[in-house]
């Protein structure tokens, strides 16, 4: 009680008020974030924490990793998962895997054009009203592997492979969760029976996932000769998915620093003005 009393009178004394204000803001923030973390769902194993170089206020993406990650998505995941909010041009926009200063307009970027042209998308119906196809352009969205949800479920034993555009934001523990999921397939424990067509993965809620382990060793041959271990591929594709979910992340952090520097200087200026204006008033 005594300690509390002292804290209280300090908190409301004139000297302690700034400290108290700051403390309130910080506790409120921390409390709120604790709540968000506490919401993480029940029975699945907690994802392994990985040190991501794009995490944190100074983190940036590694272009080579983004390119490898896109290669994994395209050669492996895209046969089951769409990314409907991404367009080929995004790959060549500032911050993207294939951004090239010589082609600030991604529609002119030859790599992006080639990647797009390699994909076939539905075209306008022809003069007889019959469906046609054409090579994609940078303006096209990534195509969906399945025409309807029913076909997607039919091909996947009744399960629906979710769209991956914002999957990192849509899961608790984001990047860590997806990485753990991709490398975390195991033999089921003895007391667990897994129905045929499902696979045991302790990170997946419920433990039985309809996605076969998508990244066996050497699943792809990397264009840059990196060794394609399961973990390497998982790290790369997750980095790509993180970029895809939030493509302006680097620009956002860069602007954040400018804003914080500006606001700090402004605060200093107001603090000095405050001291000057009030210097003759007892308060």
């Amino acid at each position, binding site marked *: 009680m005594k300690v*509390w009393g002292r804290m*209280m009178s300090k908190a*409301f004394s*004139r000297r302690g*008020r*700034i400290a108290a*204000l700051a403390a*309130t*803001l910080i506790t*409120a*923030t921390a*409390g*709120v*974030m604790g*709540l*968000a973390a*506490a*919401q993480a*769902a*029940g029975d699945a194993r907690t994802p392994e924490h990985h040190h991501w170089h794009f995490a944190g*206020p100074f983190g940036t993406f590694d272009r080579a990793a983004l390119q490898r990650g896109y290669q994994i998505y395209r050669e492996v995941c895209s046969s089951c998962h769409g990314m*409907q*909010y991404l367009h080929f041009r*995004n790959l060549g926009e500032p911050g993207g895997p294939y951004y090239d200063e010589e082609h600030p307009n991604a529609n002119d970027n030859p790599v992006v054009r080639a990647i797009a042209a390699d994909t076939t998308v539905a075209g306008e119906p022809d003069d007889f009203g019959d469906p046609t196809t054409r090579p994609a352009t940078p303006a096209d969205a990534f195509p969906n592997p399945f025409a309807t949800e029913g076909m997607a479920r039919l091909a996947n034993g009744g399960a629906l492979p*979710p769209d991956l*555009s*914002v999957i990192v*934001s*849509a*899961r*608790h523990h*984001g990047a860590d969760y997806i990485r753990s999921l991709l490398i975390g397939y195991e033999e089921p424990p003895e007391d667990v029976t897994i129905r045929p067509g499902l696979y045991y993965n302790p990170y997946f*809620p419920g433990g039985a996932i309809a996605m076969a382990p998508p990244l066996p060793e050497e699943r792809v041959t990397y264009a840059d000769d990196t060794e394609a271990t399961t973990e390497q591929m998982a790290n790369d594709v997750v980095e790509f998915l993180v970029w895809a*979910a*939030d*493509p*302006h992340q680097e620009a*956002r*952090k860069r*602007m*954040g*620093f400018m*804003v*914080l520097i500006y*606001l*700090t200087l*402004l*605060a200093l200026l*107001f*603090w000095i*003005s*405050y001291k000057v*204006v*009030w210097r003759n*008033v*007892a*308060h």
Partner: protein
Amino acid sequence: MSGPSTYEPKTGFTRWLDQRLPIVRLGYDSFVDFPTPKNLNYWWTFGGILMVCLVTQIVTGVVLAMHYVPHVDYAFASVQRIERDVPFGWLVQNIHSNGASMFFLAVYIHMFRGLYYGSYKPPREVLWILGCVILILMMATAFLGYVLPWGQMSFWGATVITNLFAAFDGGTGIITNWLWGGFSVGNATLNRFYSLHYLLPFILAGVIILHVWALHVVGNNNPTGVSVKSRADTVPFHPYYTVKDSFAIVLFFILFAIFVFFMPNALGHADNFIPANPLSTPAEIVPEWYLLPFYAILRAIPNKLLGVIAMFGSLLILFILPWLDTSRVRSMRYRPIARWFFVFFVICCLLLGWCGARNPDHLVFQTGVDAEGHATGFTFLMLARINTAYYFGYFLIILPLLGLIETPKARPASIDASVLGGRKVSSSGAAVQPAE
């Protein structure tokens, strides 16, 4: 406090205008010459911060509305488009979504300030009640806004909250169908929520004008709670408080910017990045953090109708607070017992928020195991019930009784005297002048 105006038009034009529409005079009397107690601390800067929050929400909201598509098939995609393709759309969107949280953070601090310093007591009852109206409008606006991105939490949150009103129609669905514009939460619901989300902030702005008007009639309270007695107690609002408020606003913006630029999704729920799906109920349906305490009160009561009444009651009780608190001493600085109950009240609100975020059946701590080997102990439901009881007890029992039995400490004779360190002029004991 709204004494004679001291404004003197200086130019021909302002003289001409002043005789036709004295709007410059109004601004001058309200924000330049307005006599303000000279001992206000930083807790008093949150009113100005709230004004900035409102303007921020309206400006960013209007820009978002230029790109948002209120249709169940396109709403989620249009928000993605804003974040990805609209130039600086990510910035505007992050400011608006985090701005709502900042707004509530500020309003809760602003209200706790009022509770601690007795700002709801005469002559500020109407000012306080207008504040309560503002709080309810803010909650409605934020709830409606959260539905617009049409993610899983949007959809299921809307379903849960609108279904609360089913408690009042005896299960006939008359009220819910009317609210939804159909037989479930659907496109008609999304459209009307969008319309109302755009409307309410302007009503809010109107009520805030009344709130500030009421403030300028009775004048600011202050940390001593002692009424302003002479000019020596006050300073003109400008430049003294314009500069202090500006400093506080910039500090607040620093916190705001940390969220917007470095952890824009920290306050949101992952499930709202999954497009709404009426066929799949999420594992947990939780509202945004600033509504959690009220959600906890709702779930603390086993009966649905009573739960809904308790939840709305927890807000409505604030309206009659000026008549529940029987103490004539405003500031809890001079109320040695009440300030402790106040501290517990703040803790109680935080605990209720915690309960609102957790499954009511989960354990806060374990005390043993039952016959089948399941852990037993103190559940979040129990914690929520205790705190709900304290929440209402604070207003209905503690404040009414305490005013009658507590012996307040000596108050300074005036603000000026308190600033100069001269104390204990009004002798201790309950012999107090009308409210101070």
